[in-house]
């Protein structure tokens, strides 16, 4: 399992692996929003939590098809499927690798972009906390979408169509936590819900994703 994780991390960080692409996209998005809305602090600050969360969602989406597509092309996915490790475990490790290469940089970069979007400083801890709890669910759901669409030639668009509606609960609670953080309101309730959604996803989705992979490898 650790070997697979390290291999995936090496592949992602290698040249052409697309590492950092998500963060760059996030940066562009954060830079574009003020052009669309206007530079006014009073206009930007209220929408900042939502924009940051939607931005995190979209950046995460960018690299999803890579989770299985490359391994499917060169046949190593078939090897992984016949390996002694259960396919559910493979899915979980792959999602973890995606989270480390996409979610973690996103979390580290988010405070910088939050400054660009005039998010009040007191909301920073809640932004980071909500992303920390929420993004693993995004990666895992993305792995499910990638597993469903892995055999398709034009799977990219379909992948986003399938995955984005699944992101709605995470988005709602994550943005709500950040917003409450900005307004110094109690955050326990949405925090518990967000954690619940993530735990549910982590517990159930590996099985669904592995089932989809088995169908696609038939």
């Amino acid at each position, binding site marked *: 399992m650790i070997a697979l994780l390290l291999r995936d991390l090496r592949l992602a960080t290698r040249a052409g692996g697309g590492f950092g692409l998500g963060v760059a996209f996030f940066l562009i998005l954060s830079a574009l929003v003020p052009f669309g809305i206007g530079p006014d602090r009073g206009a930007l600050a209220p929408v900042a939590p939502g924009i940051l969360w939607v931005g995190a969602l979209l950046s995460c989406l960018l690299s999803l098809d890579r989770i299985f597509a490359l391994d499917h092309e060169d046949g190593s996915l078939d090897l992984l499927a016949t390996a002694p490790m259960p396919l559910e475990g493979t899915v979980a490790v792959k999602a973890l690798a995606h989270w480390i290469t996409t979610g973690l940089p996103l979390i580290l970069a988010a405070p910088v972009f939050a400054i660009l979007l005039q998010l009040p400083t007191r909301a920073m801890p809640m932004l980071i906390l909500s992303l920390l709890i929420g993004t693993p669910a995004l990666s895992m759901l993305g792995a499910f979408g990638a597993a*469903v669409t892995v*055999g*398709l030639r034009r799977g990219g668009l*379909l992948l986003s169509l399938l995955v*984005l*509606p699944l992101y709605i*609960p995470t988005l709602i609670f994550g943005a709500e936590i950040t917003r409450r953080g900005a307004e110094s309101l109690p955050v326990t309730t949405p925090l518990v*819900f967000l954690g619940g959604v993530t735990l549910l996803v982590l517990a159930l989705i590996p099985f669904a994703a592995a089932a*989809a992979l088995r*169908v696609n490898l038939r």
Partner: protein
Amino acid sequence: MSLWEYANPAKFMRTTDRVLPWLVVSAAICVTGGLVWGFLTPDDYRQGSTVKIVFLHVPAALMAINIWVMMLVASLIWIIRRHHVSALAAKAAAPIGAVMTLIALITGAIWGQPMWGTWWEWDPRLTSFLILFLFYVGYIALWSAIEDPDSAADLTGVVCLVGSVFALLSRYAVLFWNQGLHQGASLSVQSGERMAATYRHPLYLSMIGFGLLFLALVVIRTRTEIRKRRLAALQAQEARA
């Protein structure tokens, strides 16, 4: 004699051959009857004549949800017992569900314009239906994207299961989100309660009509799928010969 015999495509075709005319006729009578009766009801003292929209809106919304549930059951039957008719029925039902969701959304918007003063409000119910529509679209797109029919049935089945969990989750998340946005400012679309019998009876008829219409359509569409599948099987057979 058991229910599972209908999982045999030939048996399904024979049975529906006999049932379908009755289904079509009764659906036509109930839908027309319900809508015409509804159209003739007196105006509501607050909503004026817009109350007539309810006879389209509520049955469509009811079917939108029930069709998804039916797809979930059909997908489960396919995944567990691998009956082809079941998978094809789920496929056949999805576009009907999408149209029903669309009707519910559009009639709601048209009704909301004069009543609430807005075409769209991010009310929990409206938002949930928009999300439901997205799920329908994704499901249909997935069916049309995969070439191998059995893989398509498997994958859409899994997506339907996961989608059901998340549609439900989104429903309650949306409830939370809207309260978080603006406390107390809720526009209720409740129409079943405190409704006079003058409106209730045509509404029931219309609901039954929409249900029968769905049954008739799903049977027709399933038959289409079975025929397509049979043709493909015959062609594959010849290609091998």
